[in-house]
């Protein structure tokens, strides 16, 4: 993990409350899909975690939704300003090769999945990306990649199938060898049922303080023997096997 002061290359509104932030990449480490960065924003005491949506030699990108104090301040940052970044944080999605894989997500969960889909494609997988949104304008077409099979759904039917993305996925005919998910907890819970037969990896979120595995603030319950143990989302996660998690 490194701490860098990164220049903002772009901070643009995608639509609604969603923004796309691109930072100059001056990290030595390679970031992997599932990793997140921990950003110090203004006078907020704690940093704020965001999944990596884009990563290459020059750039690091995140997609964020304005939901509170920190993200509202982030929104106001301009190109050329600097941000204090900690990263790469957390673990990452295991990458399979030459498989038929499903990626499914919605909301801000799309962010890590975009990066993931790019890498999975590179490794020869046949990638089906189930992309759920509330409305057509919350589908970020310009961030999508070629060579990936997108299946869309919107709550209001303004694009793709009408309804929940999980239902679309459920009724889909293909047999996948691996499932990757991120987004609303309810979606992640539902995905767990597939984990009996095939690997299901999901990225979970939790309120964080350190982001480095030190404070034990971000723990979730993970199956252990007949009981559970608390594991840290920031360090042992954010990617877990869906089967391991004990949901509240």
């Amino acid at each position, binding site marked *: 993990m490194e*701490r860098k002061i990164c220049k903002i290359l772009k901070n643009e509104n995608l639509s609604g409350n969603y923004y796309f932030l691109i930072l100059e990449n001056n990290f030595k480490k390679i970031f992997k899909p599932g990793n997140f960065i921990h950003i110090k924003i203004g006078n907020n*005491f704690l940093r704020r975690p965001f999944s990596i949506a884009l990563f290459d030699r020059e750039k690091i990108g995140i997609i964020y939704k304005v939901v509170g104090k920190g993200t509202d301040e982030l929104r106001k940052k301009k190109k050329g300003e600097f941000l204090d970044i900690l990263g790469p944080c957390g673990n990452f999605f295991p990458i399979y090769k030459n498989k038929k894989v499903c990626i499914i997500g919605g909301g801000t969960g799309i962010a890590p999945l975009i990066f993931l889909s790019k890498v999975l494609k590179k490794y020869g997988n046949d990638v089906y990306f189930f992309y759920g949104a509330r409305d057509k304008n919350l589908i970020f077409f310009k961030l999508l990649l070629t060579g990936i099979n997108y299946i869309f759904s919107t709550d209001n039917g303004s694009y793709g199938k009408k309804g929940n993305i999980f239902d679309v996925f459920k009724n889909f005919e293909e047999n996948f060898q691996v499932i990757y998910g991120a987004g609303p907890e309810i979606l992640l819970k539902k995905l767990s049922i597939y984990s009996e037969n095939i690997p299901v990896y999901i990225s979970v979120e939790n*309120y*964080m*303080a350190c982001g*480095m595995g*030190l404070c034990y*603030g971000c723990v979730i319950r993970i199956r252990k023997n007949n009981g559970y*143990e608390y594991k840290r989302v920031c360090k042992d996660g954010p990617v877990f096997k869906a089967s391991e998690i004990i949901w509240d």
Partner: protein
Amino acid sequence: MGLNLEITLGKIKLNSPLILCSGIFGFGNENIKFIDERKIGAIVTKTITYEPWPGNPQPRIYETNYGMINRIGLQNPGVFYFMRNIFPKLRKKYKRVFVSISGRSEKEFVEIIKIVSKKRIDAIELNLSCPNFENEKKMISQSSELTFKIVKSVKNETDIPVIVKLTPNVTEIKEIAISAEEGGADILSLINTIKGLAVDFKKMRVIDGGLSGPSIKPVGLKCVYDVYKVVNIPIIGMGGITCGLDAIEYFLVGASAIGIGSGFYSNPQIIDDIYKTLKNFLRKNKFKSIREMIGLLNEKKENF
């Protein structure tokens, strides 16, 4: 520059006055690049209990105005596991290791002390801010009598220096500090978190825990300032330190060393930053050591 930042805490020599607070750095065995062991005087482990504790369910943390509330609940693997599997790594990594412990009864304290005293640890820190002690509604360090009693029994059991960490949630911290000293404490740690509560509107629930961070600095300074006047043992000052000037404030009001706490989460390079500021401050003010600035802003010692 020959300037160094060495200090002594009673009989313990530290090559830096920067101490990593209990609970802030996990068990100290994570590989955190930002911690330069040469700039660290000592690490205090997360508080260890006799049996393994799972800790509290969520929510465990919440941000406040210039601070945070935590209710981690002493999640730890118990003293046996800790001493066998974690401690040896710390021993190798840090020059000085202080082990923080807590118990639910006098007997538990004594048992833990027996176990930790078998290894070469540099000091034991008694976290006396654990609620639910022998079915009292109080923390140990909310009572002069209990504080005295526990410190005394621990001291009877071990030759290792004993640090006593106090809660600021008391009517008069000077009284508690004096009891700890009378019980045989070698060093005091001031302060643990302050009782605080935050409201999570989204989930419509409260987070009822301990407040730390910059917002509590005035309270930490006040406690150190007051206690310095009435005890003759060194004080590790902590609470809200986020930069070198904060650390200097603690020295000026009586701390012999300072604790790096949740400020680390905001700025993981805080150790380098403070270390540098301290060196510059000594040089600029022609102080030869940290010692020379300790308690400079205190009036004379008072009789209490």
